[in-house]
């Protein structure tokens, strides 16, 4: 049986369509007319991007295939393991292999949601409304709980009444940025999943 690499098998040619029975396998497979199926590869004409799995800390590399639809949207077609990676060599576990479900989940929150004190339900609101209110909350809580000098006369400049917790699933650049901003606000209560 001649060997074919995964890369060769997945290669998206210019024509896009390929009857699976011929040439790519290196030999001709004779199929009866009734069972010969002409299929387009689902990823025909797709753009290949590289990502990393969002789940555990092995850090498997992913190849993601996207296509622009006729109404200008970007459609995610497939996520597979990246055969070039020295970490996973193209393999994925069940979570990584189904990571597409996370990206295309119908359960995503569609808009900013606000719940007033004592309210029994969510209200869909604008980003501006939310960010304005939160900013005012931050300022008022910071001013109410800021300690400039402690009981021993030491300058401490800390905000004791606001905490930030997150996030092991966002990028390092986002994480560093969160640390910088939260320390800039004077927060001391800063945590993420490392402790738990």
């Amino acid at each position: 049986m001649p060997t074919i690499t995964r890369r060769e098998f997945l290669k998206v040619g210019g024509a896009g369509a390929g009857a699976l029975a011929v040439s790519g396998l290196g030999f001709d497979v004779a199929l009866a007319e009734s069972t010969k199926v002409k299929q387009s590869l689902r990823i025909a004409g797709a753009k290949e991007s590289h990502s990393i799995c969002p789940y555990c800390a092995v850090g498997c590399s992913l190849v993601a295939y996207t296509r622009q639809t006729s109404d200008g949207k970007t459609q995610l077609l497939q996520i597979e393991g990246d055969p070039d990676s020295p970490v996973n060599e193209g393999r994925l576990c069940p979570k990584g292999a189904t990571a597409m479900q996370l990206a295309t989940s119908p359960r995503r929150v569609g808009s900013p949601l606000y719940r007033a004190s004592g309210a029994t339900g969510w209200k869909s609101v604008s980003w501006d409304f939310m960010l304005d209110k939160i900013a005012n909350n931050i300022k008022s809580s910071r001013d109410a709980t800021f300690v400039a000098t402690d009981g021993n006369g030491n300058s401490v400049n800390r905000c004791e009444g606001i905490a930030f917790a997150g996030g092991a699933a966002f990028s390092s650049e986002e994480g560093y940025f969160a640390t910088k901003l939260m320390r800039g606000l004077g927060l001391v209560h800063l945590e993420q999943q490392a402790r738990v």
Partner: protein
Amino acid sequence: MTNHWRDIKNTDLILINGANPAEAHPVGFQWFMRAKLDRGAKIVHADPRFTRTSAVADMYLRMRVGTDVAYFGGLINHVLQNNLFHDAYVRNYTNASFIVKEGYAFNDGLFSGYNADKRSYDISTWAYESIPAPPSPGEANATREGPATSGSGFAKRDMTLQDPRSVFQLMKAHYSRYTPEVVSSITGIPVADFKKVADLVGQMGQPDKVMTIVYAVGLTHHTTGGQLIRSGAVLQLLLGNMGRPGGGMNAERGHANIQGNTDHAISWEILPGYLKIPAPGQKTIADYVAQSAPKKSDKNSWNFFGTNYSKFMVSTLKGWFGDAAKKDNEFAFNFIPKPAGNASWMTIYDQALKGKMEGLILSGMTAASIGPDSNQVRQALGNLKWLVVMDPLPTTSSEFWHAPGVDASQVKTEVFMLPTTHWIEKDGSFVNSGRWSQWKDQVLPPEGQARHDHWILADLFQRVKRLYQGQGGKFPDPILALTFDYKDPSKPELDEIAKEINGKDLSTGKQMTSFALLKDDGTTTTGDWIYTGSYPDAGNLMKRRGGIQDPKANDPTGMGFYPTWAWSWPLNRRVMYNRASADLDGKAWDPKRPGITWNGSKWVGDVPDYPPTMDPHDPNAWLPFIMNGECVGRLFSNGMDDGPFP
């Protein structure tokens, strides 16, 4: 991990404790199986449960939860009693020869210095006997700026390891208690099984053998977690396995970027790069460094971290506060908040229950489902004035106020649910357990109204800043000064932030190429010194793709380093402390599995964790473990609050 995933294929023996990698890290586990199938490595799995990992292990040991100190302690005892330790390594690369000062004792299960009322230790007796520290010729090799690195003296040493107060002899006595019968009675492992493992482990002290220890939350999720892990590391030092391909102490972390965000210090007690958070009472950088940085305790100690501590701190302050950080105001040291004490996970919810926490921002983390007590957390959330949840999906925290059985009208908390983007809708890097920082593309645009976490935080910060500018308020200085050198301050690009993390030389405008070049005079910046070098002017090294498509070109040593795939900290080094992979002459302990070796004029192989041209034959050459004050592996350590020996 001191090593990395692919490196595990290089090992002869794998001890797995507190982990189930076949199920929890299945793709990483291929490297364990490669070691087993390709080089005949053995896998020993010690765990309270028989799992899929146990099913493919050569030995499974059913052990009681949290008894790993007895397990590793018994192995330490076996190695010491039978002289199976790696002699040259232990003598030269660990603190076995260091003399502990009079006053240190261990009796009846307690170390010296125990205060029964406070239920804590005064650790001052956990120290070395001091000899005066002469100005050593080796000091000329260390950079001179900043506070003095020498402590009150250097440690007295006995290279014969015979002195009864040497770490070696104290350790031998300490672990003599862990006979196979005692190990069995504590751990539940049958004596015969334990002896079989001890035989396997006892062979790993030979220079041409190497063992790895792999662990996960089964070791960390204990109040004694630090010591459980340390007992494994101590065993590895005795066997000469730290710093070597196929060796090390390897944590299998749990999340896509838990490593990166630990490094970037979303943790109450540290600043990026594991600098300590300043403490009340420290008025100046000098105070801070004196209380935080390691101190040199041997003439051949580089004390790299201690020597550079002020440079890393000042460069971070300069990066964060820009022009407001000046020589005459301690580079805005005062802008950094100083916690009174523990401000960790547990304290957050305790404080909320006491009515002292007004607001909480949860970003990609659901408090109500994580941590030891869900009920306590949900009660605490109900006691906040306001809660912000940033997540793509609803979570147990965003919905806590109308969970089943909860009367929403009684929950006063104002709750904000902000839909965020998924990992695939933004670029940026994830750092895996092996410290490899791998950049990902933005594959999809944000869906619907979802926004990026960093854009939300940037926008919020700008709004808070405008409120302070307009209304005044408590100490607005750090808020007004915080640097936002991005094309759009409310929409910074992750690429811009990556450059900031790397750091810049302000006098030339060039990106820094190494943390060794950072200064404490305000002319350099960094966001996180351990990432300095990841994004030089040549480009973002985390994007590199020199992988297995061409092993000859991309892995020239054949050791699985793949140095041009992505970028690992520090400085793209794959195995940490790799100076310890070679002997005193710079020859690999195991020539078949070299880490770095001395070729006569420089160190070659992996990126050396050592000055690249420092001749090992120079009597003033540094020792291998450059990050601590002793510059050797610490069998005895005063770095833990609950005991110098595990």
